[in-house]
């Protein structure tokens, strides 16, 4: 199975207006980010790394012009998303770690407050969204199943919904009780340690917290058999604490705490019930949880649900899914014919605005029908077609309109400039060109948008020919279950606190309970960066963008932080975009590396490709300036500075600083040459007619050494 694409950046172009003219920060960048991988973007300062990441987060500076391209995430194109929509994406979908840990924490908010803020904030919206998504999915299933000729689709779904509600209630009760039990367990442990160490200041508060959490952990699947025992213990602890508070001697409660902890330890390790099937059992069979071990109970309810309901339901639902998919394919075929019919309107040398808008309208209407209402992984291309074509058309014609006004200013300014220079002085200012928008590119954009859409539909129809509908149905049902759970999963303040403390532990902060109440200025730099990472992870994002997270830290902390990001990535299956200027840092982090120079990706490949087989002279230069133990020679630095992007060079941007530059490097931009399936580089050296230029000695030697070492360890 192909890996799941999380984020797709296509032909991204971003510029900034400045007093001196337009600076092209990012020129035609494309890359994909897959689930669970680390993509490192490496380059010098000013190469457009941060601009790219900020475009993804939607926090570009005010003077940025989005010239074109797409950033596809889910059903959205992040280049055209409004600020309101971004509020929903940021945090729980995409999160970011900034470079400077000193300034990315609010100095007057306690660390704990900052950690829980995003959790509480996001929980509310995610509950609401899940509910909406769930209802929409139900409705779509209903419609399609009825249309496919399933007679009792309505009753089926009603049934599903009915026990779904029961399921989510059970689930939320169970998870809440379990969360409380875990919290109480952790509190008890810390209290025991405190008593044993005779550190009893403020202990009574902790004890009250413990009692509250322990009380709430009593439920059918958590603390059940020994609930009476636990409650007796709690009462005992309370009365003893009142005395101990005065005498400052807590040794009397120690024994009780140890007992309570053992109860909780046991409770936390119980088997989890299958709440989904249990929900079915309770709704349709017998409204009482039968008294038997959880494993047996799970088996019983599972068999019942599968045989009585799920299996026949799945067969019927599959019909609906198949029907919906076929309907969508038919719509796609129609859309392709419409798109192909309208394409010439855009392809004309001088397209007409009215015609284009009419064509765009027709196309939008056709494309919007091609959305399969039963899709689980959202089809971003189709979702974003409307905004893309509107944007492309607006950009092209808007560019024309702006021209008339700008042209006037331009001629005026040129006259003034000439007058000044005729007077014998050279003016210290330059004429800003009239057009900020490249019309040719905008025109191409319009045409490409339509062409891409056609290609995409064709690919989809092809893929649907041998689709596995049973699997798809299963995905849909799983998705329904998940949405059901999410829509009732409520994070309270104390749960959020417990989660935050666990998170602090997992990013390697000692005594998280005490640290939780501290202010950022009480932490050292490395600790603060850990907090920043923990905050970015609080809302469980899909994608984590790290913008030079270790640059401000010393080397030992740097290694720890990198290790931490790596571990978190593995645990949570995160996709990470790691931005840095230091190739040494990414060596053992990245799955794939994109080397950027002057707003372009010059080389793109897996970590092994880049380190063992670098192709672009700039990558050579970067590699040879990384210090390592065995290198005896003087390290090479790269002469010169990156080009001024107000006047982007005609040829290869690196040619000026390249010792081995070819003549063509100054005249034409090299295309991306394919070296292997995973490895691409933009340099004329890869052209079949190019002269053979050896890599610098320092690199070839190092690669040999590395390969030898790799061989030894194997």
């Amino acid at each position: 199975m192909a890996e799941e694409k999380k984020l797709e950046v296509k032909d991204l172009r971003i510029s900034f207006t400045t007093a001196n003219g337009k600076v092209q920060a990012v020129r035609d960048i494309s890359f994909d980010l897959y689930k669970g991988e680390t993509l490192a973007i490496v380059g010098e300062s000013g190469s457009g790394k941060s601009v790219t990441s900020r475009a993804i987060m939607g926090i570009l500076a005010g003077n940025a012009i989005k010239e074109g391209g797409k950033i596809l995430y889910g059903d959205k194109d992040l280049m055209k998303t409004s600020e309101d929509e971004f509020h929903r994406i940021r945090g729980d979908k995409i999160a970011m770690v900034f470079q400077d840990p000193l300034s990315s924490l609010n100095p007057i908010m306690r660390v704990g407050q900052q950690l829980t803020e995003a959790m509480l904030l996001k929980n509310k919206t995610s509950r609401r969204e899940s509910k909406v998504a769930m209802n929409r999915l139900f409705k779509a299933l209903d419609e399609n199943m009825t249309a496919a000729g399933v007679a009792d689709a309505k009753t089926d779904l009603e049934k599903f919904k009915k026990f779904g509600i029961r399921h989510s209630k059970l689930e939320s009760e169970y998870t809440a009780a379990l969360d409380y039990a875990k919290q109480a367990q952790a509190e008890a442990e810390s209290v025991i340690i405190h008593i044993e160490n005779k550190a009893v200041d403020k202990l009574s508060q902790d004890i009250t917290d413990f009692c509250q959490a322990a009380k709430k952990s009593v439920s059918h699947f958590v603390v059940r058999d020994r609930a009476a025992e636990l409650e007796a213990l709690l009462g005992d602890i309370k009365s003893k604490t009142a005395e101990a508070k005065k005498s400052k001697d807590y040794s009397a409660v120690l024994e009780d705490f140890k007992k309570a902890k053992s109860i909780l330890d046991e409770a936390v390790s119980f088997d989890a019930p299958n709440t989904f099937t249990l929900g079915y059992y309770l709704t349709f069979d017998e409204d009482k949880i039968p008294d038997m071990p959880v494993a047996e109970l799970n088996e019983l309810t599972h068999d019942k649900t599968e045989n009585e309901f799920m299996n026949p339901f799945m067969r019927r639902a599959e019909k609906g899914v198949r029907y919906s998919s076929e309907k969508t394919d038919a719509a796609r075929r129609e859309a392709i014919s419409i798109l192909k019919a309208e394409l010439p309107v855009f392809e004309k040398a001088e397209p007409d605005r009215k015609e284009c808008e009419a064509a765009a309208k027709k196309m939008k209407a056709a494309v919007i029908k091609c959305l399969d209402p039963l899709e689980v992984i959202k089809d971003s291309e189709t979702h974003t077609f409307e905004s893309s074509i509107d944007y492309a058309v607006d950009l092209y014609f808007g560019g024309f309109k702006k021209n008339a006004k700008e042209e006037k200013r331009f001629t005026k300014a040129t006259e003034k400039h000439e007058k000044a220079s005729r007077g014998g002085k050279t003016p210290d200012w330059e004429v800003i060109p009239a057009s900020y928008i490249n019309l040719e590119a905008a025109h191409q954009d319009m045409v490409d948008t339509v062409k891409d859409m056609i290609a995409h539909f064709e690919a989809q129809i092809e893929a649907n020919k041998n689709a596995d509908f049973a699997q798809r149905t299963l995905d849909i049902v799983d998705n329904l279950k998940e949405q059901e759970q999410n829509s009732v999963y409520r994070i309270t303040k104390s749960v959020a606190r417990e989660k935050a403390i666990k998170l602090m532990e997992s990013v390697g902060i000692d005594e998280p309970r005490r640290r939780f109440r501290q202010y950022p200025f009480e932490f050292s730099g490395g600790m603060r960066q850990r907090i920043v990472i923990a905050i970015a992870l609080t809302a469980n994002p899909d994608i984590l963008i790290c913008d030079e997270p270790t640059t401000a830290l010393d080397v030992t902390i740097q290694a720890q932080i990198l290790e931490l990001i790596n571990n978190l990535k593995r645990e949570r299956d995160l996709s990470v975009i790691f931005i840095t200027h230091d190739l040494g840092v990414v060596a053992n982090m990245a799955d794939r590396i994109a080397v950027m120079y002057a707003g372009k990706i010059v080389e793109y490949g897996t970590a092994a490709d880049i380190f063992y087989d670098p192709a672009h002279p700039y990558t050579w230069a970067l590699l040879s300036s990384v210090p390592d133990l065995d290198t005896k020679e003087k390290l090479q630095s790269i002469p010169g500075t990156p080009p001024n992007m107000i006047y982007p060079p005609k040829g290869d941007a690196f040619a000026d600083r390249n010792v081995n530059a070819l003549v063509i490097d100054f005249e034409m931009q090299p295309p991306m040459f394919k070296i292997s399936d995973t490895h691409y580089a933009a340099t004329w050296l890869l052209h079949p007619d190019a002269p053979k230029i050896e890599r610098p000695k320092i690199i070839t030697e190092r690669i040999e050494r590395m390969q030898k070492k790799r061989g030894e360890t194997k």
Partner: protein
Amino acid sequence: MERITDILISIPFIVVATLFQMHLADKVGSFVSLLFAFITTGWIGIASRVRTQFYRFKGQEYILAARTLGASDGRLIFRHILPNSLGTIITGTVLIIPGVIFSEANLSFLGIVNLETSGITSVGTLLSGGQSYLSKFPHMIFFPALFISLLEISFNLFGNGLRDAFNPSLRGADE
């Protein structure tokens, strides 16, 4: 907006107070018209102070960081920016009090405001009354002067104390 306040702030307070006394005092009494004068000019300083503070914190990286976590504009304003600027704003507000007291004393000393028509006395009136007896009875000046100095100092100290209280990094020491 900022330009308008810039223009307004450049009008001397004494002129505004005099105008109010001349035209409003007959109708509503000198005390009320003095209050009017303070209110119409007093907001300007605070407004620009609040604005500066908000602009200062708006650009901070942690505001951006909170934004990347999905905090809405309202939340950013009330949960992040306002608490940060609150210390300075409140301190500034408290420090306005001695300023107001002093300018009132000034005005009544110069005789622009005569609060005695409203049946109230003021340090300024006492001082200007005592001025003519300065060589014979110096204590007539000394006590009102001492009083106003102490008032000023204590309000200033109060303001400083508030500033420290709003800054957790200064508070942490005794916790």
